[in-house]
């Protein structure tokens, strides 16, 4: 997030897209509810009628994959009506003209035709967002232009044009000067406890800790020096989905999986399974024998986050302490301790410098102290300084208070750059054989591949098994009633589950969460066309067909 969670309650206008906030990030939805009760406008753009729509003052429901037309048309209207922030554009940004030129063709008429969203709703959303208008009561900011904030999540990113979607929202915020101030900004709601931190400390193919490019000789050299190694690899590595393809092609021979369950969470599960069966070595380090574990050669028992010390970095870039609450079961160990054990042995066997002694860490805090040396955005942090509320990066020095709001006064790169983006269609469109669109996501009571929540007694009681949400119109066409068995077919595979007939999805769209091992949604999703830059799979759009097994 460019801004902080607790600023949301003071926003004048909140624009949410691609985030089912009340189910996937409930505590952030509380902030949204508070803002709306105080008079903020709430605009939701989503193909599903998500629970938070009950509080929205404006709901736009585009057909899946067409939201980009709505975003572009909003900006078209903002420029046409002169609602943009000309001072901000002139002083803080660059490449505005080329960007604005592209928008000329993206009229609300065209967006309405593509997305099914009425023109007047697009115009209304454009005005409220651009000017930060409220439904009632006064802004705490007392400025001519109210403060508008954008919240988004995987609904716009797990798409073959996910990067374009994010750039478009960034363009929108700069166009209206809705960034670099409290209660504004472009705010991705991140879905996993430490997904932000795993990225920050270099768990990515192209960057070392602190987002330092692996291709940059100078930065790579500095990290190598701190680590006392002669050299570090300089080629960008393979992402998750690419590595599955490479395993099938015989290029990847071993995969070491820590705390992940690709058999449930990666697209095209049948393909993943085929790849994993080909491996010479699959190491699974986890807290449970996950679906992936049943293909592994070796299982390493890990402590859960309730059973160890360390830090997590949340969606607002806040690094916070986690503490050992209970002891780990049996012989399970903290992940860092297992990795250090393996690393020491492998460095010995491969005769790597600086040798096994370099892998002797006595505590999580000693590892944190080392990581601050090579992670510039964390360099002013220490366990002591993280008391009691953590610190938000960047925190470059020991006296720096952390950064609740990014891009104040100037952007990280200097001037904010407008990127001209064109609308693109999803990779897999519906056709006669697969006439419906499947979209995947989460339900309130479960988390990711269900490894933890499905083993929690109260959560299991409330939501014991999987179901596909189907619009009454589509259900009726197949003679399906609520709670009936249904078979879902895609070009990749087949899943059998129960129906939940619901207006929450529009006609033509089916929703299936990816928590259910008995109905694994990712047997249906595609892995052939990823976003070209982020390499993210298009989980949100797959062409499918429904079958009523009783009609056989």
């Amino acid at each position: 997030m460019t801004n902080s969670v607790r600023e949301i309650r003071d926003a004048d206008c909140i624009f949410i897209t691609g985030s089912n906030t009340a189910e996937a990030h409930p505590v952030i939805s509380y902030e949204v509810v508070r803002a709306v009760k105080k008079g903020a406008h709430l605009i939701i753009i989503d193909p599903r009628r998500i629970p938070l729509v009950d509080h929205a003052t404006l709901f736009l429901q585009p057909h899946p994959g067409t939201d980009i037309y709505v975003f572009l048309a909003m900006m078209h209207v903002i420029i046409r009506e002169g609602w943009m922030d000309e001072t901000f554009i002139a002083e803080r940004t660059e490449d505005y003209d080329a960007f604005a030129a592209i928008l000329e063709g993206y009229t609300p008429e065209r967006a309405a035709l593509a997305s099914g969203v009425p023109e007047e709703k697009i115009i209304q959303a454009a005005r409220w967002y651009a000017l930060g208008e409220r439904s009632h009561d006064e802004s705490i900011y007392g400025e001519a232009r109210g403060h508008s904030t954008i919240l988004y999540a995987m609904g716009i990113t797990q798409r073959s044009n996910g990067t374009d979607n994010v750039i478009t929202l960034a363009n929108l915020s700069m166009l209206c000067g809705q960034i670099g101030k409290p209660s504004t900004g472009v705010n991705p709601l991140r879905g996993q406890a430490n997904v932000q931190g795993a990225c920050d400390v270099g768990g990515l193919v192209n960057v070392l800790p602190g987002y330092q490019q692996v291709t940059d000789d100078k930065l790579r050299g500095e990290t190598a020096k701190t680590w006392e190694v002669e050299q570090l690899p300089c080629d960008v590595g393979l992402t998750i989905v690419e590595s599955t393809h490479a395993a099938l092609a015989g290029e990847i021979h071993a995969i070491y999986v820590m705390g992940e369950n690709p058999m449930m969470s990666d697209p095209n599960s049948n393909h993943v399974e085929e790849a994993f069966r080909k491996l010479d070595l699959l190491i699974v380090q986890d807290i449970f024998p996950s679906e992936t574990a049943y293909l592994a050669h070796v299982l390493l028992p890990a402590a859960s986050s309730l059973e160890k010390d360390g830090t997590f970095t949340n969606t607002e870039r806040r690094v916070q302490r986690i503490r050992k609450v209970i002891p780990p079961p049996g012989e399970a160990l903290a992940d860092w301790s297992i990795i250090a054990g393996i690393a020491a042995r492998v460095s010995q066997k491969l005769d790597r410098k600086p040798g096994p002694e370099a892998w002797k860490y006595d505590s999580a805090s000693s590892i944190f102290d080392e990581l601050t040396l090579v992670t510039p955005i964390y360099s002013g942090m220490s366990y002591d300084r993280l008391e009691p509320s953590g610190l938000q990066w960047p925190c470059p020095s020991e006296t720096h208070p952390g950064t609740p709001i990014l891009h104040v006064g100037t952007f990280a790169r200097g001037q904010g750059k407008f990127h001209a983006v064109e609308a693109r269609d999803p990779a897999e469109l519906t056709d006669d054989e697969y006439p419906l669109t499947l979209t995947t996501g989460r339900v309130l009571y479960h988390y990711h591949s269900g490894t933890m929540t499905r083993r929690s007694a109260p959560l299991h009681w409330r939501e014991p098994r999987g179901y596909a949400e189907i619009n009454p119109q589509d259900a009726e066409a197949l003679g399906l009633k609520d709670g009936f068995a249904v078979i879902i077919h895609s070009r990749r595979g087949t899943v059998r589950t129960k129906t939940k007939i619901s207006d929450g999805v529009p006609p033509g769209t089916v929703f299936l969460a990816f928590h259910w091992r008995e109905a694994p949604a990712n047997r249906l999703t595609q892995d052939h066309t990823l976003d070209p830059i982020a390499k993210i799979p298009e989980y949100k759009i797959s062409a499918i067909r429904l079958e009523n097994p009783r009609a056989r």
Partner: protein
Amino acid sequence: MITLSIDTKTIQVAPDTNVLKAALDNGIHIPHLCYHPDLSISGGCRLCLVEVEGQDQPVLSCGLTAAEGMVIQTQSEQLTELRRGVLDLFISDHPLDCVVCDKAGSCTLQEYAYEYGLKETSYEPTVSSALFQDDNPFFLRDHQYCILCGRCVRVCDEIVGVHAIDFANRGFETNIATPYDGPMIDSTCVFCGNCVQVCPTAALMPVSRLQRGREWDLDRTLSVCGYCGVGCQIEYATKDNAIIYAQAPEHGAANGTFLCTKGRYGWDFATSPERLKQPMLRRDVAHKLGLTEEPWELPETSPLDIRNPNVEQYFVPVDWDTALEFVSSRLSEITESHGPDSIMGLASARCTNEDNYLFQKFMRAVIGTNNIDHCARL
């Protein structure tokens, strides 16, 4: 800023601040049961009465906006008598069975009864006839302990936004109920338990803590939730190395005093009997290493189709040394025979910064590849 005086202390507060908040924020204690800093003002409990210079009658401090030059007294004989009278009414229909109550030690009504020296009511004690409701595994509703402060109703509507409960019936029969008093699961309730957290008495209690120990028996550890990325701080109450219940701390950085259902109730996975407790080698691997006698082959059934997975059918337990030696030998052999880029590491958004940092350092500095990714995109 507004300047006022409370108990002779000069205090500065922002405009539109109520006197109760002004006092509490400045370390001046005024008893209150229905007021909560994150919720709208109810004024129903009548406990937070104060004296305002120039006014004949005591005033509710929660509903009184601080004004320039205001002079407030929070303690006096008159106020003590009034508060005792209010508390006397509260305990007239509240069971005084603190000796067996799980909330003892953290019950606000008990705290005030102690503070004002009330050990029994001067009225004829009458306990609410509304039923005890245990219709879900998240929390219990025991209406005889309810003092109708309405905090639960307000948090459900004003913060969570689902308005699953409200006041039902009238007069002495008033109770907090779902529509038509149906089971919780049939209401709009999302089982977040924020009502339980703001409840000042034992009317709403987490199921997990019943008969599991009293406040003074419990240890508390502040940590961060392991589910989504909001990063809610959670205070876990434990006894003998077991979690008894979880709640939000008083000032969570991102979450304030609130949590969702997964954070508050979804921690019991940790003690599931299915947890991996020791390193294990697959049966074919173990056989090849001479650790088992039976030859074995990986079945063709997809892991997604195994009906009742049993890890011991596929794996045999080994000690850490055997497991680490196997892993490190195989990784070294494959690195040497096929090159570092034939190895892929998948780190985790569920592991700590320290875990992930070491993982990527291992892949880059020891194996020698940038094939290191995690579930950020999934």
